[in-house]
């Protein structure tokens, strides 16, 4: 059998697609390995209070204003955009049901996570990236600390534990904003607004939104820390890490939202085969 080196060919579209696919698989694998190392770090000991609390303040407390403002406006925007259609059908008192269920199931969790990705994810990537290029991560190792345990675990726990609370805040302020605009500006009767809203929004809807938010928080923390740890050299590398952290987190939030949405809906139909619809009310 004749053997020999394959003839050298110029890269074509198939090569480029193959290279892109391999790079994508390698990137996902790299993030997965990073998450596994982080889980190992978490299992070998939780961070000290003095390390965890400043992270929780930075990630959770300082994110409250932006989450509240976003939630408030989204609630009001929903009222503005849906009123005409419901008014045409003479169902404007059902507006609360639509606004509230949209907020607790989708917009609250996704917007809180997006705000967290923008404000915190980029900041984490830039901070860890700067620590990497200025050898502070090497200094941690030289001083007997595990950088994953010291830098990644507290940020992960802060995102993971606090995002449900930020989501609940976004839900609450969005519901208040929607109610305010509907009843005070669009002149919908407040009693009927709340009556239909309460009948349609279930505890399962609220919990499913909070459940999804936990995954969003975990994804933001892992992606941002991973980008920071693998930051390129110099200011350009740090800037790129911050941008990549936001973009990758945002894509991950939307992808997770889809798959988790399918999951929680399937679970709902399994538990309660007859869903509540506007027509039931």
């Amino acid at each position, binding site marked *: 059998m004749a053997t020999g080196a394959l003839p050298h060919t110029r890269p074509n579209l198939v090569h480029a697609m193959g290279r892109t696919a391999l790079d994508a698989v390698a990137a996902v694998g790299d993030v997965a390995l990073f998450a596994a190392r982080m889980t190992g770090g978490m299992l070998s000991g939780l961070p000290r209070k003095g390390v965890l609390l400043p992270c929780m303040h930075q990630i959770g407390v300082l994110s409250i204003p932006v989450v509240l403002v976003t939630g408030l406006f989204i609630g009001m925007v929903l009222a503005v955009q849906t009123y005409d259609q419901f008014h045409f059908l003479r169902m404007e008192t059902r507006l609360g049901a639509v606004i509230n269920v949209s907020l607790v199931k989708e917009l609250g969790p996704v917007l809180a996570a997006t705000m967290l990705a923008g404000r915190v994810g980029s900041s984490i990537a830039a901070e860890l990236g700067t*620590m990497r290029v*200025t*050898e502070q991560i*090497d200094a941690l*190792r030289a001083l*007997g600390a595990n950088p994953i345990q010291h830098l990644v675990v507290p940020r992960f726990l802060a995102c993971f534990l606090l995002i449900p609370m930020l989501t609940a805040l976004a839900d609450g302020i969005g519901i208040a904003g929607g109610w305010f605009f509907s009843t005070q500006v669009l002149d919908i009767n407040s009693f009927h607004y709340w009556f239909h809203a309460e009948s349609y929004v279930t505890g399962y809807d609220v919990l499913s939104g909070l459940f999804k938010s936990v995954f969003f928080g975990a994804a933001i923390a892992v992606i941002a820390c991973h980008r920071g740890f693998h930051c390129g050299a110099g200011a350009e590398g740090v800037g790129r890490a911050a941008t990549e952290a936001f973009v990758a987190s945002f894509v991950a939030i939307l992808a997770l939202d889809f798959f988790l949405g399918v999951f929680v809906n399937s679970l709902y139909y399994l538990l309660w085969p007859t869903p509540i619809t506007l027509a039931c009310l």
Partner: protein
Amino acid sequence: MTHPIANPHFAGRSTGANEPPVIALAGVSKTFSGQPVLRDVSLEVRRGETLVLIGESGCGKSVTMKLMMGLLPPSDGDVLWNGRRVGALSEREITRERLRFGYLFQGAALFDSLSVYENVAFGLRQNTRLPENHIRQLVHERLAEVGLPESVCGRKPAQLSGGMKKRVGLARALVLNPEVMFYDEPTTGLDPIMSDVINELILKVRSQMPVTSIVVTHDMRTVQKVADRVVMFYPLARLDDDEPQIVFRGSPMDAVVSDDPRVSQFMHGEAGRRTHELAVAE
């Protein structure tokens, strides 16, 4: 006062001929993204000596030091600590063994978010269960040794000058009473007086503690002042495949009078044909 975390390796220290070197590189190569930086480098650091690594920028001195410290894995070959292969140690063992080493980073690498006090106390809090009043006493002692007053304790690294950062970095590295000290370009970016202060501190550390020192520098005054032995690296890009990367091993005086034009040129800081070579390369 006896240091509460006195290093057991200092006790009964022997300099016998059969004792393995504190750190050794055996045929070590290192490649970054396909770009070779070190090729088949073998080097031994003997207990108690001050070894100075010199060479042009980009020749792999800092990488060599990080390999010795276990902060980077070699692409090929072995790093040995007291005769034990680092590659055969678990991550936990490496972390524990690494506490025998102190490292003064090129830019000091102080933790931006922590104060000077917290930076120096970091290693003690991380690795000991000493009460805070004891930690405070040790931090103040170490800062005093590097000539810094207690009043700097509350400052953040951004509020310090370059020389102060280096001294805080040195205090932080020394607080765990290391057996081996690594200095990565300790005088780079400092004025001549502060450079000499750092050189004096290196000598002071050596006189007060039985420490082995490894120094990477371009500063010939540092070489003359602190070195027991000098090793000169040469960039791989300017070597033939069969040429060794270490082009000189010997005393500082031998380096000054070396016949090798590469060593002589570096020691005397002469551009020679480099200007022409760089122009051709461009």
